[in-house]
């Protein structure tokens, strides 16, 4: 007889607390989570394979769509790797503009996260106000790049759009507005007792565990891990600007909130420095369509943590291999650890605290059979019948419903 004191609960793939499908299997003892497991694989989109089928220019827009929030992160990471293989020297102004958009993206992502975190703990007022203020930076991004998300700013050999002095002025004005608002949110996060009590000691992750499990980004920095690609392996224009890497020793969700709001202040400072130092000159160099054979890894500190792209070129206009490691993949195992010994009611905020982006994370895992099976080809109808049978064997049968509503042959 099964142990009644231990109950297994599937949390997801479809669950109101999750914004994207993901499966967590929780073992509960009462309200307490005794063990947690994460299963990825509900959002696989085949992006890496699709990249191999397209030219580098087409891939730019594809990798940009790996993530809707950190789209610039992915495209910059990819384009940096490609430029390294091609040995392109990017004009200084283009590098600065890339960094500028990167920091504006970080601002919008962190403000978005603050709102989501507020929402997950039932503090919807915070959600409404942070998202209202986030519109300032979203409008700015739309004006600078041509779109609110998927900016399409990068191209191989530079950036596609230059900024005018008036726009630089607009950015500075917006930074002043946002800085004032962020000071207010820092006040909210550090003084609002309901928020502090709700987030403190939730999703604990010690320094050792953060290092051991390979946490990245604000999740790691909130556990005192002083790690930031922008400083450790400077790319783009980060060498030319000074900024602090924010760390915190709370080691819980509260610490992650503090790290993110303080990082916002650093982002405003970086944007100001960039605009002050913005060199003149062209924003793009001519890039070859065919990239010479070679391989490179792009590293990038996305708002959620370190983003890695590996690109292998074979001398044609299409890459031979593109590998994307989104920050959530590094952090998702950390979630399983953080959930342990916590309460079921803390689950949504613990998951939200890493700022998860599950569809960015999903990659195909090929399971090597001990005995290789011959490949099968199924037509669309055969696949459908196979799916219906698969579920029927497991006791899920919609035949009756289909007959009633008349939408299906079986």
């Amino acid at each position, binding site marked *: 007889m099964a142990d009644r004191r231990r109950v297994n609960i599937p949390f997801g793939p479809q669950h109101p607390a999750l914004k994207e499908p993901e499966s967590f299997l929780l073992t509960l003892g009462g309200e307490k989570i005794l063990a947690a497991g994460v299963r990825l694989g509900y959002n696989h989109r085949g992006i890496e394979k699709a990249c191999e089928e397209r030219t580098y*220019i087409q891939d*730019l827009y594809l990798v940009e769509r790996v993530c809707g929030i950190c789209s610039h992160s992915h495209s910059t990471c990819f384009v940096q790797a490609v430029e390294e293989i091609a040995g392109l020297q990017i004009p200084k102004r283009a590098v600065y503009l890339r960094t500028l958009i990167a920091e504006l993206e970080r601002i919008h992502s962190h403000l978005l996260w603050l709102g989501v975190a507020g929402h997950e703990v039932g503090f919807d007022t915070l959600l409404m106000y942070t998202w209202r203020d986030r519109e300032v930076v979203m409008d700015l991004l*739309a004006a600078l790049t*041509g*779109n609110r998300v998927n900016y*399409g700013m990068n*191209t191989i050999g530079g950036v596609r759009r230059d900024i005018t002095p008036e726009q630089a002025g607009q950015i500075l004005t917006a930074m002043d507005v946002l800085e004032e608002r962020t000071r207010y949110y820092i006040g*909210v996060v550090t003084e*609002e007792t*309901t928020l502090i009590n709700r987030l403190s000691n939730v999703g604990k992750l010690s320094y050792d565990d953060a290092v051991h499990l390979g946490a990245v980004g604000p999740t790691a920095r909130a556990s005192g891990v002083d790690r930031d690609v922008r400083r450790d392996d400077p790319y783009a224009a980060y060498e030319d600007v000074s900024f602090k890497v924010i760390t915190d020793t709370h080691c819980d969700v509260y610490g992650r909130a503090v790290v993110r709001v303080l990082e916002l202040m650093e982002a405003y400072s970086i944007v100001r420095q960039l605009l002050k130092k913005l060199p003149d000159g062209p924003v793009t160099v001519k890039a070859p369509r065919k990239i010479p054979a070679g391989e490179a890894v792009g590293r990038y500190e996305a708002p959620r943590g370190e983003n890695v792209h590996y690109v292998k070129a074979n001398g044609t206009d299409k890459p031979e291999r593109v590998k994307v490691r989104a920050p959530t993949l590094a952090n998702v195992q950390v979630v399983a650890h953080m959930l342990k010994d916590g309460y079921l009611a803390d689950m949504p905020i613990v998951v939200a605290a890493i700022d998860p982006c599950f569809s960015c994370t999903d990659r195909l895992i090929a399971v090597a059979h001990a005995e290789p099976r011959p490949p099968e080809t199924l037509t669309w109808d055969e696949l459908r019948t196979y799916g219906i049978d698969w579920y029927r064997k497991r006791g899920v049968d919609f035949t009756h419903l289909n007959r009633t509503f008349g939408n299906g042959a079986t």
Partner: protein
Amino acid sequence: MKNPGKMLREVLESLVSKPATIRYPAVTVTMPDKFRGKLDFCAEKCIGCKLCMRDCPTGAITIRKVGDKRFACDIDMAKCIYCAQCVDSCMKKALAITGEFELAQLNRDKLRVTWEACGTPALGRENEPKSTAEAAVPQTPQDAGPETNADPKNDPPPKA
């Protein structure tokens, strides 16, 4: 000072301040200059190099040769991701972006837009609906402004 209700003052102030949202669609919204909306094609400038077709990430654009140095263009707006790479790729600036963004359609056919080649003999056909509901679409480069497309007769209401 650590007290609950830190945001209370802000919330109460918002009760008497103007809404942060705009009353779209009652209020029209203009997009920033660089906004990447619907594409525009100028048949006179096109030389048929098809670089746009080659660079389009989704294969949304098709340039057809209809005669001697005359090219027509089909754009599938359902496939278009509005990256405007074709605009960058075009050496003759035959393609341009407009600020038009209200492109939602219930009829998929209306998302397929055709620009006829310039000097097409069937100019008289311009104002009569074509077989594939492409009438909502500008037929000549001169008509290709956003105001033509905003013709309410041809478009279904935005939210049906």
